Structures are given as C-alpha cells and as structure tokens.
C-alpha cells in the first residue's frame, strides 16, 4: 500500500534560517508526491507536487521540495524561514487504488520564532 511518513511532529527554526520538513514514502510504481500547508482554522492549501522530471520542485510561498528516489524521500525546504510560515505541513502520496486518491502523512508542525 502507498504510504508516507513524517518523522517529526514539530520542527522549530529561527526566522531567517533555512528550514526542512521531512517526508519519506513507500509506493508501488512511480511516486506522485504532494505537500500541503494548513494554517489555523483553515483548510489545506496545495504547495507543490512531484510527478516526474526535475528532482527539485518549486512551489508556492518560496517553498521547494527535493525528490530523492534512492532515499525514498521528499523533503520540503525553504532557504529563509518567515514567522508567517508557522503552520501544519502535510506530505501526501497518490493512492494505489484509483488515480485520484491521496494518502496523507500525520503532519509536522513548523514553528518559526522571531
């Protein structure tokens, strides 16, 4: 079965420093991977996706993600964190049964301190 793991419940980083939110995946076939962000009392917002092609994917709000097939990872990164980046981040993978379904990780809370 398709699955993703987010090993960190929370990541703390100081404003201006680079941030990384980790995600590893387990799939049958080619992985279709996604990152979403959730701000308090809001729905999830799509950040970026990897379908095929360049291993470095650029997304919204200055975020990017690096796909690493040998390490089965898809880590979310940003060169310089902002306090406003503080939110809950979810990694997701396309489900095996049915092209459209997504399987989500448990989420990582990012806290950026001033």
């Amino acid at each position, binding site marked *: 079965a398709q699955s993703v793991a987010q090993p960190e419940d929370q990541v703390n980083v100081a404003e201006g420093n680079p941030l990384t939110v980790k995600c590893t995946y387990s799939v049958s076939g080619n992985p279709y991977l996604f990152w979403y962000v959730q701000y308090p*009392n809001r*729905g999830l917002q799509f950040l970026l996706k990897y379908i095929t092609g360049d291993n470095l994917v650029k997304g919204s709000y200055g975020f990017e993600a690096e796909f690493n097939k040998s390490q089965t990872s898809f880590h979310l990164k940003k060169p310089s964190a902002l306090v406003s980046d503080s939110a809950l981040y979810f990694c997701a993978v396309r489900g095996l049964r049915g092209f459209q379904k997504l399987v*989500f990780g448990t989420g990582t809370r990012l806290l950026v301190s001033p």
Partner: protein
Amino acid sequence: DAGITQSPRHKVTETGTPVTLRCHQTENHRYMYWYRQDPGHGLRLIHYSYGVKDTDKGEVSDGYSVSRSKTEDFLLTLESATSSQTSVYFCAISGQGESYEQYFGPGTRLTVT
C-alpha cells in the same frame, strides 16, 4: 478555498442523532472527497465520488454514508452520530488528468456530545 464551501462550519449534536454535512463546489470538478482530521492521524479518507451517483469507500467509512445527486454537491451523513466521530471534516475536489492535486474546503468542526 478554490470555490468550495462547506456547511455548517460548526455543529454540536447529541449521540445517536443523524447529521448531514454539505460540500458545494463551483469548479465543476469530477472528483469529490470527504476526509476527517484528527490529531496524530493526519487526514483520513472517508468516502469519495468520481461522478454523479458514483461513490466509493475510503479507509474510515464505517458509520458514514454519502450521496452525490449533482456535480456540485457532495453530502456526508453520519447515520447515528457517536463521540468517536467528533472531528474536523474536510471536503476536497480534484479534476481529471495527471496533476492529481486536490483543493480543500474550509472544514466543518463537529462535536458529538
């Protein structure tokens, strides 16, 4: 939130009562989904729809039913609410094609007392 509305946004109900949540989209997307979000579990798929009157179960479908009589509306019904169904419920939509990203509504916070 990508032309998706959910109603109600908040609801408190008693154990054993039926509850219906509504998701309405203005994007004319084919696929619609219902998820629940609980701490430590992320988002889990309850049911999804791949067209009018075409629905299927997700990973946590017990105690829930859905209906889709129009492209724009997807209803989630808790047949007899239980305290374990206290959660935040999100509707999502996606179009066809290889992009596969889903767009989410604002959520409904349901409390079953």
